[in-house]
Every structure is written in structure tokens, then in C-alpha cells.
């Protein structure tokens, strides 16, 4: 009966007769594999048949089983007896075959087992192990029928001290470096005044929210455009590459931020993918990488034009503070008005200097030049952003044309010009504050 063997230790020696006993295969109920193997094609003896050597497979030369049946059955038994499990040991004889499969041994003491990592099962293994590395490998114990050997089929692997992850990073880094993609001279300056920032990240992640909040606070004039991508899981590298390609073809952004919030190392792994790094290096838009937290360093960080420790920091680096920009614009307005006024004053002085040395006939001509200058000065004032006359402010000038900046420079009866948006009015001062009282008057008001 099958109940007799279920749960028995796997080391129990199995006789040939038992192998082909009519009982159900010695397979655990949880095992996903189906028991239909070639060995099962051997018809089991009818239960009511007498126990005769000629009938039981393998019990006599006449009933000998094929090698194929034997190895296949051995495989069934092993796979049934062992659930996939972690095995610890030292790697030796590692070989990466052309066909993409890896072959190696795991050893400790005097024991060893042959291992294989099929190319399709390798996706979760960051890098090939080195000989001598202490690893834990997860896999299924089985039989390799072509050699009649026991074999451990590995699908996951962890090395001591993150050895495999470090190795994977080093390998990728070395390849990128060989192609010159890590050269600091490749790094482009991040535009100081972006209008639009493309953000490659997950639509639902914290990164997008953080970046939006920072941009809203610092410089709401800048538009944040999400280019959605998967940032973790097996499809993430391809998805990130596609988003980078979109940004490159769109050309509508001034800066691209690529990243995601913090997570487990496996969750951040897509940003260490070589394909993603190369796509980022090729992106024609200056890039900022922002992967995880400050301590997380990714391959993308090395390739991007700027590395930001977090998505929020990336946004801070990408956009200026709007209030500071306004201040800068105001400064330019001042500089512009001041310099132009200087030019006019310079011209005035030059004309006056010439006029003093000229006979009357010529002076008339010079006067015309003077009128030209004054008309330029008038237009200048009319356009001046400082005056902001259109908003109802006026400029107060003395009859000599000097701007009145303080009420304390005025005396009662002084004659002034008020420059409005559409013309100039002459006025006379009636009252001035007594020297002790009176606020420090604001400029130009009368």
C-alpha cells in the first residue's frame, strides 16, 4: 500500500521490486509533477495475479526493464520524495555553456552534487557564481537520465555577503565603463529653467506624488508629465526602456527624472539592468536618476547626468524656486531701465557739450538732436516696467527731470512733473511734512 511508504525517509533504500510495485507512485500529494512517465507504461500486474517472477518487471531476465524506464522511474521517485529546497555548499567546476545553461558542482566535505541552472530558470539569479563561493541554492533534486546521474536543478541562488548581487553590479558596471558610458565628461548640465519635466515611474507610486508636491511648492509654472512604467517585477526593465524611448522620441521635456521610491533590493533591481542603463545613456534629454533611498546606489545613478538620493531631491534639483525667478526678472527689469537711462543721459551730456562750442546756426540742428533724445527718453519711461504706469502709478520728477524719491527733498511751492501713462502734468507742492514728523515717504508720491 502507498500508505506504508508515504512520509518514509528519502534515504530509504528502494528495491527494484518496490519500484514497480502496483501501489501508487511514492509521490507526495503536493508535488506538481504528473506521474505519467515512460516507466508507467509497463503494465502493472493484476492484483489477483500470483506473485510470479516472470510477471513482475525486473524480477527475472525475461522481465528485465529498460535503462530508460529505470532512470525515468528513479527520477520520479526522487522528485516525488523531495520538494524543491535550499541546499548549501561550495561552488566548483562552474561552466557557462554556449546554450545559456550553467553547470557546476556543490560540495562540502567529501560529498558533492552536480547542479544545473537552465537558462530559462536563471532570471532570478543576478550573476553566475564563482568557483569557491559559498552559496545557498534553491532547486529540485532530480535524475539526469542521459548520464544516469543525480542532478540538482537550480532556480535561485544566494551567496554569502550579497556576493552575487555585488558581482552582477560589477559586471554590468565594467561593461558600461568599457563603452565609456560612465565617463564624467558625458554628463550634461541640468537646464536651469525647465518648462516641462518628464517623470518615468509608476503611476501609483510615492515617487510621482513626491515629485509633484515639490514642484508645486517650488515652481508651479513647471509642468510635470508622467511617462508611466513598471518599476519592479520581471517586465520592469523592458517597460523602463520603452518609456525612455518615448521620452527620446517625444522631445517635449527639458529634463527627465527616472526612479521610484524605496523598496527591497529585488524591487530596485530593474534600475541596475544593463538595458535600462544603456537606454538612459542614449536619452537625448538631460536626466536625473532617483532610485530608492539615499543609501541605494544603482547603475542608473552612474549613467544619469545627475544622481539624486530620492525622488523629492530629484525634483528639488530639477526646478528652481519660482519666487527667486521672479526676483531675478525684477532685477533684469531694473538693470535694463537703469542702463538705458544711462545711455540717454550720456547722449544728453554729449549733445550739451557740443552745443556749447558751436555757433548759433549749428545749435539749432543740435537742438533737433536734443529733441530726438528727449523723445527717446519719453518712450523709455513709457515702456519702463519699473514705472508700471499702466497700473495707475505715476513718476514724480523735478522740473530738471530728476525723479523725486523722498518727500524730504521737497519744499513748499516746488514745481514738479507727474508722469502718467498717457502724459505729463505740472503740479505745485502745497504741503510738506515737518522735518520731525512724517514717515519716510515712499518714492514718487505727492
Amino acid at each position, binding site marked *: 500500500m502507498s500508505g506504508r511508504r508515504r512520509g518514509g525517509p528519502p534515504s530509504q533504500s528502494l528495491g527494484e521490486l518496490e519500484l514497480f510495485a502496483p501501489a501508487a507512485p511514492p509521490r507526495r500529494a503536493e508535488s506538481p509533477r504528473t506521474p505519467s512517465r515512460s516507466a508507467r507504461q509497463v503494465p502493472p500486474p493484476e492484483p489477483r495475479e500470483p506473485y510470479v517472477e516472470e510477471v513482475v518487471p525486473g524480477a527475472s531476465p525475461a522481465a528485465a526493464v529498460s535503462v530508460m524506464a529505470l532512470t525515468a522511474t528513479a527520477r520520479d521517485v526522487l522528485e516525488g520524495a523531495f520538494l524543491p529546497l535550499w541546499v548549501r555548499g561550495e561552488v566548483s567546476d562552474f561552466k557557462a555553456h554556449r546554450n545559456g545553461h550553467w553547470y557546476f558542482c556543490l560540495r562540502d566535505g567529501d560529498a558533492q552534487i552536480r547542479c544545473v541552472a537552465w537558462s530559462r530558470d536563471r532570471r532570478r539569479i543576478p550573476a553566475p557564481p564563482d568557483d569557491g563561493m559559498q552559496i545557498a541554492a534553491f532547486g529540485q533534486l532530480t535524475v539526469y537520465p542521459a548520464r544516469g546521474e543525480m542532478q540538482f536543478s537550480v532556480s535561485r541562488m544566494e551567496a554569502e555577503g550579497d556576493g552575487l548581487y555585488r558581482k552582477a553590479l560589477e559586471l554590468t558596471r565594467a561593461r558600461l565603463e568599457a563603452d565609456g558610458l560612465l565617463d564624467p565628461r558625458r554628463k550634461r548640465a541640468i537646464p536651469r529653467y525647465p518648462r516641462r519635466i518628464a517623470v518615468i515611474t509608476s503611476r501609483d507610486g510615492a515617487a*510621482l506624488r513626491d515629485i509633484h508636491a515639490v514642484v508645486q511648492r517650488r515652481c508651479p509654472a513647471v509642468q510635470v508629465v508622467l511617462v508611466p512604467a513598471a518599476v519592479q517585477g520581471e517586465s520592469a526593465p523592458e517597460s523602463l526602456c520603452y518609456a525612455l524611448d*518615448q521620452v527620446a522620441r517625444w522631445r517635449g521635456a527639458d529634463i527627465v527624472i527616472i526612479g521610484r521610491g524605496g523598496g527591497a533590493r529585488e524591487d530596485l533591481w530593474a534600475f541596475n539592468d544593463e538595458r535600462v542603463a544603456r537606454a538612459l545613456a542614449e536619452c537625448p534629454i538631460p536626466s536625473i536618476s532617483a532610485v530608492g533611498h539615499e543609501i541605494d546606489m544603482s547603475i542608473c545613478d552612474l549613467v544619469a547626468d545627475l544622481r539624486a538620493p530620492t525622488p523629492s531631491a530629484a525634483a528639488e534639483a530639477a526646478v528652481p524656486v519660482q519666487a527667486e525667478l521672479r526676483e531675478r526678472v525684477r532685477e533684469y527689469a531694473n538693470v*535694463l531701465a537703469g542702463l*538705458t537711462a544711462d545711455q540717454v543721459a550720456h547722449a544728453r551730456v554729449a549733445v550739451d557739450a557740443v552745443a556749447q562750442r558751436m555757433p548759433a546756426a549749428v545749435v539749432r540742428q543740435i537742438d533737433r538732436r536734443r529733441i530726438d533724445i528727449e523723445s527717446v527718453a519719453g518712450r523709455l519711461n513709457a515702456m519702463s516696467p519699473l514705472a508700471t504706469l499702466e497700473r495707475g502709478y505715476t513718476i514724480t520728477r523735478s522740473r530738471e527731470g530728476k525723479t523725486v524719491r523722498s518727500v524730504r527733498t521737497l519744499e513748499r511751492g516746488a514745481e514738479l512733473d507727474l508722469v502718467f501713462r498717457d502724459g505729463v502734468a505740472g503740479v505745485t507742492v502745497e504741503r510738506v511734512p515737518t522735518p520731525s514728523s512724517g514717515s519716510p515717504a515712499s518714492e514718487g508720491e505727492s
Partner: protein
Amino acid sequence: MTFEKSMARLEAIAARLEDEELDLDGALALFEEGIAELRAASAFLATAETRLKQLNESANGVFKVTDLRA
């Protein structure tokens, strides 16, 4: 004209205005151009709310930026 270009142009205009060799008409022309740049820059800075957008690409490779629904 982008904000960045406006600011760069203003910088250049200011530098030229500092040059005393300019004739008056030239100075005025620069001033007028500067005012236009200042207006463009100020208009950009008038925006008070970031619009969160999403990039969409149609099957024929045409890009459209649409509002991202929260």
C-alpha cells in the same frame, strides 16, 4: 521663446547696454526687445498651479499630453 532663452537674452541685452559705444537708437531697440523678453518671462512665472500630466502615444507614434486623472 522659453524662459531659459528669455533669461539668456536679457543677460546679453544687459551686457550690451553696459557698452557705452551704443548709439541711442540701438540702446532703445535693445530696451524694447528686453521689455518683450521680460513680459514673456513674467507670463511664464504667473502660473500658480502645477498641472500633473501624462504622456500618451497613439498607435501611429503621435504624442499627446493629457491631464492625469488622480
